């Protein structure tokens, strides 16, 4: 008795004005309208949200964990992108 699969959706909630939407979990729904309502009923029961996005799970393209070195390590040596790389004399104060 196999049950046909109901599509999977990823849920993103913006908790307070000014913060970006954050992934909170997933759910199953037949279409986007039902997915949005289900996201409201499941993931905002304790006043967690002010805005909801739902995205079909299969619409997400993810980076390959085995390519982590190539993808992310080159950024680690570019320390000149961070303010602490630069020396400013103390007497100048906060900059």
């Amino acid at each position, binding site marked *: 008795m196999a049950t046909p699969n109901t599509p999977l959706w990823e849920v993103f909630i913006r908790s307070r004005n000014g913060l970006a939407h954050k992934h909170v979990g997933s*759910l199953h729904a*037949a279409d986007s309208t039902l997915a949005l309502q289900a996201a409201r009923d499941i993931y905002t029961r304790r006043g967690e949200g002010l805005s909801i996005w739902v995205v079909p799970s299969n619409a997400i393209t993810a980076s390959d964990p085995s390519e982590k070195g190539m993808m992310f390590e080159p950024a680690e040596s570019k320390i000149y992108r961070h303010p602490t790389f630069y020396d400013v004399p103390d007497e100048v104060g906060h900059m």
Partner: protein
Amino acid sequence: MYTQALNSSDGDDRGVEDVAHASQFQARIDADERIEPNDWMPAAYRKTLTRQISQHAHSEIVGMLPEGNWITRAPSLRRKAALLAKVQDECGHGLYLYAAAETLGTSREELVDAMLAGKAKYSSIFNYPTLTWADIGTIGWLVDGAAIMNQIPLCRCSYGPYARAMIRVCKEESFHQRQGFEIMVTLCRGTAEQKAMAQNALDRWWWPVLMMFGPPDQVSQHSDTSTKWKIKRFSNDELRQKFIDATVPQAEFLGLKIPDPGMKQNENGNWVHSPIDWDEFKQVLAGNGPCNRDRLAARRKAHDEGAWVREAAAAYAEKRKSRRLAQAAE
């Protein structure tokens, strides 16, 4: 709510496919890194987690039934709202957990079908009946209390989606045990009949609750691999002891007697319980508890009677999609 009893691994990792990957994997676990869905993992790790997380999910969903049995009979509107919200939370927790299990590659439908076919286990505790309102208090106090003991360490489990789901579950469940204890306090401060109801519920639930933590460590199999993989962080006996030591003073506060006349405090201050009837535990797990058949029948009925609704939603979604395509083509 959930139990430790089902936290054991599926076999060992000796048949590992790829030795180099396997040692990198173990190194990541040892460094307390989280494993994520697309990461390489040993087949046994995937299998163990799929089984454990889905059993955990089944337990949440089947666990709605014994308490749901009292939503329509809750004795005040305040209690009714709290109980409905609590049982609804359990549904939500089942849902989060199925989602975490799905990240390992098995769909919710397949996992649910295995449960409905009687092939997947769920916590033994939910095969006991809720006979009186005091059972609702006792479940919150003891069953949720025991579940918290097990679930807090799972928030640090090595598998990222499971750990994240557990963090959410633990946060939401923080009111569940308090809800149950408040019911017990009210009953114990009430009439003689109410207090007797509370004592009777404790008498019936105490031993099944101790069994929730699973067999004693010396006979528990497979624990080693689960511990090595940081899925399981405490042994069954450790958690059971922690639970008993926390519960004894609470029972004293309520003026209730724990139904174990032989229980004694040892020199370390731990309460040592009398032997547990593990035959009963085995029988309940094997499907012979007082409510196993009723629980599965209720879940099958909901599933079967909901089929036409799910089919309608799917059919409508198809129609809507093709209408939108037709509109776009115009």
